[in-house]
């Protein structure tokens, strides 16, 4: 787009209106400001918070400060805000020492998380500037890829469904020869007494169970879940797994963890800055178990307080601290639970419906023959790291029990039963949630793990910096040699290209810098100069034909535009495909590449033109310094 502006009667080429020049300079300045935080390195820090969301009081804050200074550790900065305490240290050694001291002295009610706090000055943070988040391979830490075992989930679910259908058929007078769950095909195969029975079964199912679909062949009926129900179950299992993992990661004590769904059945857990990977693995993979134990109603409260309890009983407290005596032997455990949902009973009271698998159904049927109307406790157990190690150096885990709920066993129907005695629907919902989460509906397994030691992380950063700076220097040198002054301009705008790229990566949410990301930055250096090369080649062509310098300059930019647009667009599209199919670090590379190319279209074309306009524009020029 040639601007032929008449200025003082002369046709002026190579001129940008004032607003355009100001806008360009403004963008450069803003970009530089937002890139600044990256000059301030991060410092190791500790975040102390109350467990389960409790807030920290001022006296606890003072206690924390006291504990740390007793150890002789100097604190760079201490911030008490929003019920959380953030302590910044000079070195990782200090951070570790303080963490150990706080862990022992503060006890279970508080969690300390290892983290890094950027040392950005406050005037920058107030405008939302922050340094780039560093990925795992630059900071050190561990990355788990976890698989949610959908197959086992459905195996359990179908198994219970199969029993349920059989019971329902019997109750409705439909005669079945056999019901069987085929785990290979994940279908329920039913052979009915006759074709008549088979069609009665299918119509019954159609009416009462919209979640299943049937296919019928003579007396044989095949039953599966509908696709909608299947998808819903999978999504539900993943969401639940995400929730469980989040809770566990909070227990480990890592700030800025990444827990994300990947693909259909996988979850990524990234724990940056973590030092004890074994502990992390144990906690993430640890089982939280659930069990149902009958309450020992023969024990009085005084006996509990005085600790006079018989050998077959154990005293467990609930979240509020109330202690109850329950029999040690559990009736059923959480793994027997398929599903739990809250609802209203016949008399309008809140209750929880629990569905069990075949094994659980048998167990509860045996136990509840005599137990209907008696109180039963739901016990939630977790394995926590005490921080101490046994003689093999393995961490000693402590089993912590908590009573989630004491309720009365009511009716029992086949493979499901109901507990009542809940004070409100809220409590019923809460209990159903705990039952479902404790049951761990689908097992989660670690299928891949990547550990980066922190020293390797620092090494990688150093390498990355050396690579970027050398690439920058060599490219600018090359341009200078071939294109002289124009090459100098290309180098100059290249620097701004990198600056704006760094700024963009810093403020865009969700972007982290990884080694492939650094590769992307270095690649951008090479590719953004391409635009300049195309433009300058064009200008040389025009000069060769004999155009005037002004016209050559202007034509060069115009003519090169289509080439630049086409080639950059294909690069961006390739980057997008890479982003869609790539995982983790590759995504970082794709983002850096795409951003770099887009920004380079701005700096290499518009910014360099502005400079040339300033040097050559609206004057009589005899030669271009090319």
């Amino acid at each position, binding site marked *: 787009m040639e601007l032929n502006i008449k200025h003082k009667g002369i046709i002026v080429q190579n001129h940008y209106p004032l607003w355009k020049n100001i806008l360009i300079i403004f963008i450069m300045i803003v970009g530089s400001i937002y890139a600044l935080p990256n000059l301030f390195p991060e410092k190791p820090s500790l975040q102390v918070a109350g467990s389960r969301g409790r807030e920290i009081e001022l006296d606890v804050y003072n206690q924390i400060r006291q504990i740390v200074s007793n150890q002789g550790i100097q604190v760079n900065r201490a911030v008490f805000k929003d019920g959380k305490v953030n302590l910044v240290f000079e070195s990782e050694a200090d951070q570790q020492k303080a963490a150990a001291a706080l862990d022992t002295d503060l006890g279970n009610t508080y969690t300390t998380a290892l983290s890094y706090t950027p040392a950005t000055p406050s005037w920058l943070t107030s405008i939302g500037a922050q340094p780039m988040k560093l990925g795992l391979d630059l900071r050190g830490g561990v990355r788990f890829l976890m698989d949610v075992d959908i197959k086992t989930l459905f195996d359990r679910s179908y198994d219970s469904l199969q029993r349920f259908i059989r019971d329902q058929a019997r109750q409705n007078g439909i005669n079945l020869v056999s019901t069987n769950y085929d785990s290979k095909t994940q279908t329920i195969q039913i052979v009915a007494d006759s074709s008549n029975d088979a069609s009665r079964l299918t119509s019954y199912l159609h009416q009462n169970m919209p979640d299943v679909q049937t296919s019928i062949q003579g007396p044989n009926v095949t039953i599966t879940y509908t696709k909608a129900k299947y998808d819903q179950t999978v999504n539900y299992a993943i969401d639940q797994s995400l929730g469980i993992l989040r809770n566990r990661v909070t227990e480990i004590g890592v700030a800025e963890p990444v827990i994300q769904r990947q693909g259909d059945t996988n979850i990524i857990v990234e724990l940056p800055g973590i030092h004890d990977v074994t502990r992390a693995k144990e906690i993430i993979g640890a089982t939280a178990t659930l069990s149902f134990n009958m309450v020992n109603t023969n024990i009085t409260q005084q006996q509990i307080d005085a600790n006079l309890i018989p050998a077959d009983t154990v005293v467990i407290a609930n979240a509020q601290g109330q202690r109850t005596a329950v029999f040690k032997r559990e009736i059923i455990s959480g793994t027997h639970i398929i599903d739990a949902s809250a609802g209203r009973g016949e008399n309008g009271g809140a209750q929880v419906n629990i569905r069990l698998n075949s094994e659980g159904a048998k167990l509860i049927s045996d136990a509840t023959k005599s137990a209907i109307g008696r109180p039963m406790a739901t016990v939630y157990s977790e394995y926590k790291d005490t921080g101490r190690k046994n003689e093999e150096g393995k961490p000693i885990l402590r089993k912590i029990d908590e009573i989630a709920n004491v309720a009365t066993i009511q009716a029992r129907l086949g493979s499901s039963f109901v507990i009542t005695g809940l004070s409100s629907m809220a409590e019923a919902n809460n209990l159903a949630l705990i039952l479902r989460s404790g049951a761990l509906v689908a097992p989660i397994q670690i299928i891949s793990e990547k550990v980066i030691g922190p020293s390797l992380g620092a090494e990688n950063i150093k390498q990355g910096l050396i690579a970027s700076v050398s690439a920058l220097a060599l490219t600018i040198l*090359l341009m200078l040699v071939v294109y002289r002054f124009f090459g100098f301009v290309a180098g100059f705008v290249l620097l701004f290209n990198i600056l704006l790229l760094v700024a963009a990566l810093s403020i865009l949410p969700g972007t982290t810098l990884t080694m492939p990301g650094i590769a992307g930055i270095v690649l951008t250096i090479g590719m953004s100069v391409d635009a300049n090369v195309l433009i300058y080649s064009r200008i040389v062509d025009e000069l060769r034909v004999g155009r005037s310098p002004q016209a050559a300059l202007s034509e060069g930019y115009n003519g090169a535009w289509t080439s630049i647009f086409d080639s950059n667009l294909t690069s961006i599209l390739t980057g997008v495909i890479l982003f869609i199919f790539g995982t983790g670090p590759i995504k970082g590379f794709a983002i850096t590449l795409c951003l770099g190319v887009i920004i380079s279209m701005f700096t290499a074309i518009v910014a360099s033109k502005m400079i040339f306009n300033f040097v050559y524009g609206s004057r009589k020029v005899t030669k271009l310094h090319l």
Partner: protein
Amino acid sequence: MSDESKLKEIYKRGVDTPYPNRFSKKAYVLDGGIVLARPITHFMKYRKWMYIFSGILLLLSCIAMAVRGLNLGLDYTGGTVMEVQYSHAVQAPEIGEYLSKSYPGVEVTSASARETTIRIPAKLVTNKTSQDIQKLLQDGIDPEAHVTSAEFVGPKAGADLVYAATMALICTIVMLLIYISIRFQWRLSLGAIASLIHDVIIVLGVFALFQIDVDLNFVAAILSVIGYSINDTIVVFDRMRENIRKLHRVSVEECINISLTETLNRTIMTSLTTLVTVVILLFFGGSSLYIFSLCLTIGIIIGTYSSIFIAVACSFDVGLTKEDMLIRQVNKDGLEEYER
């Protein structure tokens, strides 16, 4: 529409212009107003040799892949890879022998004098493998041996990656096919894709020949090579399109020769600038980016070659004509017109 006259290659040096500069003085001027930086190089005449050369390279690559196979890295086969650092220089074969007593099938290579990379196939791996190996090494080789990084990939994760990588590759090629067909012409897109596939096969061949690890970054690198090679090709196509509109009395073959001659400088220069940065990554990028940078280096060199010699030649040989490069318009009378 076109008089396919043979271009008389008589050059006049220097352009007559009121604005002489160092380029116009050294220019080669042809009858018909074509101005070049150098005499026309008859690329199309030599294309047979180019095909033979590329054919040999392709054949060698296929043989290498068939015979030696691609060394699929950990990401695809599953297993554990760990880097161990020692306090003194060690020999990889020694360590390999020592470890293979407990872990048959282990592979140990030297990353540097005091570092080794240890690979353990998936079926031998347990949750504690990295600690176990560290302890073994500390007991038997060097009490200060420690694991600096460890990565474990289960076989399922590997299979997913292969799928994603293949899909990404296919998507990219399809996308480019469509894009170039729209922006230019389908014959050109065929030529472009041919040169791309040529590049990918040769790069794979080199990796197979030298048994270099193919990992996750490799796929990103291949895609980058594709994206990059296309850039070169587009620059040439763009110039061709422009020239065909400008030069009326010139045959397609001459037009192609002229376009290639004209774009030679810029193609080499853009490849050079990117090559410089990639080679720096190769040397300074650290071991994690080595495969990526190597793939890019080879890819850019081969890609430049194929953009110049293969892409256009293929398009020409599937019957590229001048009409193809012009935009067809159907005017109100239903008659076809060519936009010039």
